[in-house]
């Protein structure tokens, strides 16, 4: 079926490669994931709805999605500045900062969680200055936002950076010679150019944050209805031997992550298309493979 629907190519190995890909994907990802749906189907529609729309579950979605949204927005804003600074300016230690941006990818989430809690607890390096001001960071929603900002930090920087690098200065000069001041150039020329990449980065940071567990549990305080994220609610339900309940919430999260991914891929197709049009004759290697993340 698929073979007939593929375009002609003289390259060999399509059947084998695709077959292996689909097999491996099914064994490792699709079949295990479908187990969740199977388990959830043991609930009646009404029971399912009762679990996923309970007061506590809704509060956890609000926190998970809300805090992820705030964290991704913070990352969008600062990520744009960081990417801009790293591409356009020179300053001492720039290379160091540039490579450190990826730290949250590489640092285990539990380590990040413990480290952030140590820093932001009322007796920590930052907490002791913030606490007298009446700002409670660890064990509050703010703590959740901080942890999620950390985990999502690299995404916007790493998607926007290559786009900025490939942007011709000539475009800005043209805008200037046409009478635009710097502010107008930024708003009307630069921002539209980086927007697709920035939004891709934003949604990746968001998608990652919604499911994040390890770094959040240490710092959030885990108060049901207040600082309980959805993944923690799943764990809590599991520990109460409520497998069906845990699975029902997991299904909600799975559907949400799938929807988010579709959005990201659409955004990427959009920004990728722009990139390709802009650089039809160049090797868009770095840009592409950075943006792909």
């Amino acid at each position: 079926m698929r073979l007939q629907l593929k375009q002609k190519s003289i390259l060999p190995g399509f059947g084998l490669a695709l077959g292996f890909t689909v097999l491996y994907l099914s064994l490792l990802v699709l079949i295990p994931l479908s187990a969740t749906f199977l388990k959830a189907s043991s609930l009646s529609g009404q029971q399912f709805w009762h679990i996923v729309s309970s007061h506590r579950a809704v509060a956890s979605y609000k926190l998970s999605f809300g805090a992820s949204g705030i964290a991704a927005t913070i990352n969008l804003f600062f990520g744009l500045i960081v990417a801009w600074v790293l591409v356009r300016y020179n300053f001492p230690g720039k290379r160091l900062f540039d490579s450190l941006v990826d730290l949250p990818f590489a640092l285990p989430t539990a380590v990040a969680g413990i480290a952030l809690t140590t820093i932001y607890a009322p007796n920590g390096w930052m907490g002791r200055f913030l606490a007298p001001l009446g700002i409670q960071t660890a064990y509050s929603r703010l703590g959740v936002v901080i942890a999620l900002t950390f985990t999502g930090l690299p995404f916007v920087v790493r998607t926007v950076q290559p786009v900025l690098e490939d942007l011709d200065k000539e475009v800005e000069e043209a805008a200037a010679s046409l009478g635009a001041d710097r502010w107008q150039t930024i708003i009307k020329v630069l921002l539209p150019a980086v927007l697709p990449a920035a939004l891709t980065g934003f949604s990746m940071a968001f998608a990652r944050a919604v499911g994040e567990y390890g770094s959040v549990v240490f710092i959030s305080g885990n108060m049901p209805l207040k600082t309980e994220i959805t993944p923690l609610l799943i764990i809590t339900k599991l520990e109460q031997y409520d497998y069906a309940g845990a699975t029902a919430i997991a299904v909600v999260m799975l559907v949400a992550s799938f929807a988010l991914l579709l959005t990201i891929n659409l955004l990427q197709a959009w920004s990728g298309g722009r990139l390709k049009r802009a650089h039809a004759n160049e090797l868009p290697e770095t840009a592409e493979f950075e943006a792909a993340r």
Partner: protein
Amino acid sequence: MIRKVCFFVAILGASLLGFGQRVTLLNVSYDPTRELFQDYNAAFAKYWKVKTGQDVTIQQSHGGSSKQARAVIDGLDADIVTLALAYDIDAIADKAHLLPSNWQSRLPNNSSPYTSTIIFLVRKGNPKKIKDWDDLIRPGVSVITPNPKTSGGARWNYLAAWGYALRKSGGDESKARDFVSKLFANVPVLDSGARGSTTTFVERGMGDVLIAWENEALLGANELGKERFEIVVPSTSILCEPSVSVVDRVVDKKGTRATAQAYLEYLYSPEGQEIAAKRYYRPRSAAVLKKYAAQFPNVKLFTIADIAGDWKQAQAKHFADGGIFDQVYSANQ
């Protein structure tokens, strides 16, 4: 694969050298028993070697009590479970049928070789002047306790508070409900386990008072900083009976029943009782308790039967979804 090979080799070894020279037991336990079983496992291995000539290795797994029970239900091969409360072992019996439902009657003292109670740990000098349960519901007092939905210790904490209020009011449940409601309104962090709460209180500087297992509080006060914390003993508290059992289906499959059984029985021996006492668990043996009497404060203790029936009833009434804890907690928000 590797396990199969090991199994094969073990059988081969056993048939050549007479019955098993080396046994491995897995003890799945809750959080605060780490130090206890570290000492006890070494002592038991020595005892067992002398008695039978067999080398025994005891592997340990620790975590929140319900999380550990969940792992056993899902197939973690525990020979022995030593959990914070009977309900978690009941759950293993009910949901996975790995042991008979009358497990609690198989060993003395409700299968609970040591006991504990719930007391308070406060910061040095007791700046908030906390003396008894009533002080915990004062406005402005910040109380650290784990989440009763996931932590065994927290369920004892909750029931201790409930029992105190219930008995004080002469059995008026609405007063007791009001009391726990006010208590949880003062809680800023709900860790998922007792250990998390102790860390939050001790290391992170959160809260004015930690409601804790007596053994955890004594450990915290004596080993994490005598100069930083003080113990406060309330007027009354609950008698906590952490439970132990062999997991029948596992020991029968692995052929470790005799050793596992002996492991639990040795907990009741004078040596076992002494180790428990050294790690701040109240021994059942009157002689050992007398020896360590100075270390255990005098508290009037009530049992769970006095205030909530048995664990299954307590669980359904207080901790199940929509139970009293959920009701008072969401009313607070």
